[in-house]
């Protein structure tokens, strides 16, 4: 059984998707090839993946779905032969806190698997991931452990472990204390602090509300 992992981030090996891939692979004993969509010709890559039993795409959420670059690759994917038993799965991470932001494309991926005649392994979803690449170790420990477990279970069973998926996708929606807390901090403007720090560093703070196309 051979699996190919595809990095679907336009930031390639500098992004959060790459970190997810590394942690997933850490849990696996079996070797896996990894390719970067931002470095490949989409048509050639679509032809290259035919020889693998399973495709796992690891990608960021862009406007409620896959980045345009990933859709270009999907345009070129051909359906598998009827009895091929090939499979496809997705690991999706996004910026917003609640993972329900991913539900539209999750449903699409399940339809796509059907269209491609591939068994659908499911879509692993993780919210609040935009900052993973800059977080200190102690803040990513839990996430990385879950990704290691996901890789380990995948290696053994060729499935995504439902319990690990369930943990990764918390919170699915904003409710109760989390919502109240976020509403409170946005009222105070605390959610802007990080953006303002970046803007100041780039000497762009005074232009933050610009409307260049008005």
């Amino acid at each position, binding site marked *: 059984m051979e699996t190919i992992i595809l990095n679907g981030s336009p930031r390639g090996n500098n992004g959060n998707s790459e970190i997810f891939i590394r942690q997933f692979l850490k849990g696996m004993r079996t070797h896996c090839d990894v390719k970067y969509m931002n470095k490949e010709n989409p048509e050639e890559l679509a032809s290259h993946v035919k020889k693998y039993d399973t495709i796992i795409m690891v990608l960021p959420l862009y406007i409620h779905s896959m980045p345009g670059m990933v859709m270009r690759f999907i*345009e070129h994917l051909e359906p598998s032969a009827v009895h091929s038993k090939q499979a496809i799965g997705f690991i999706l991470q996004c910026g917003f806190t609640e993972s329900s932001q991913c539900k539209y494309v999750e449903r699409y991926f399940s339809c796509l698997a059907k269209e491609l005649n591939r068994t659908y392994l499911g879509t692993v979803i993780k919210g609040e991931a935009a900052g993973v690449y800059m977080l200190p170790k102690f803040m990513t420990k839990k996430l990385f452990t879950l990704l290691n477990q996901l890789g380990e279970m995948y290696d053994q069973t060729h499935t995504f472990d439902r319990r690990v998926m369930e943990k990764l996708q918390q919170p699915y929606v904003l409710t109760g204390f989390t919502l109240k807390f976020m509403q409170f901090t946005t009222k105070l403007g605390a959610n802007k602090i990080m953006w303002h720090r970046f803007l100041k560093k780039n000497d762009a703070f005074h232009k933050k509300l610009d409307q260049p196309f008005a």
Partner: protein
Amino acid sequence: MKQTVVIREMEACHMDCSYTLDLIHHEVKYCQGCWNCWLKTPGRCVYKDLDTFYNRYVAADEVVILAKVVKGFVSANMKSLFDRMIPLFLPYVDVSTGESRHIPRYPKYPDIKFYYEGSFITDEGKQVFEAYIYRTFDQFASKQITVKPIESI
């Protein structure tokens, strides 16, 4: 006079409009995920190929989109256009509705009429597609959003 912008992926009969973005002949550059449009040059993308479009989009009352369905979704070119609309919004997140949303950068955004051509292998596929388009333009702060197959107009 009402300002209409047309975005199209197919030849279309003549429509009165203030601007047409012809996606048959124009390949939209992929968003690179660099965040310059939020953190270095607020509101501006590192690529300039959509500058006229941005200008007309935020000035329009209505945007008519004629889209082709590809593998049960929008085409890569259309998807890149959606990705590249992030400079029209601010990085700040609002949770007052109970969900995370980006705060508008401009005072108003156009109403959307999205017509699509193509078929789906299942009813679920069609529902997902329509729900996705609604959601996208709802996030893009458009007030009136219509999503319909092209044969219905």
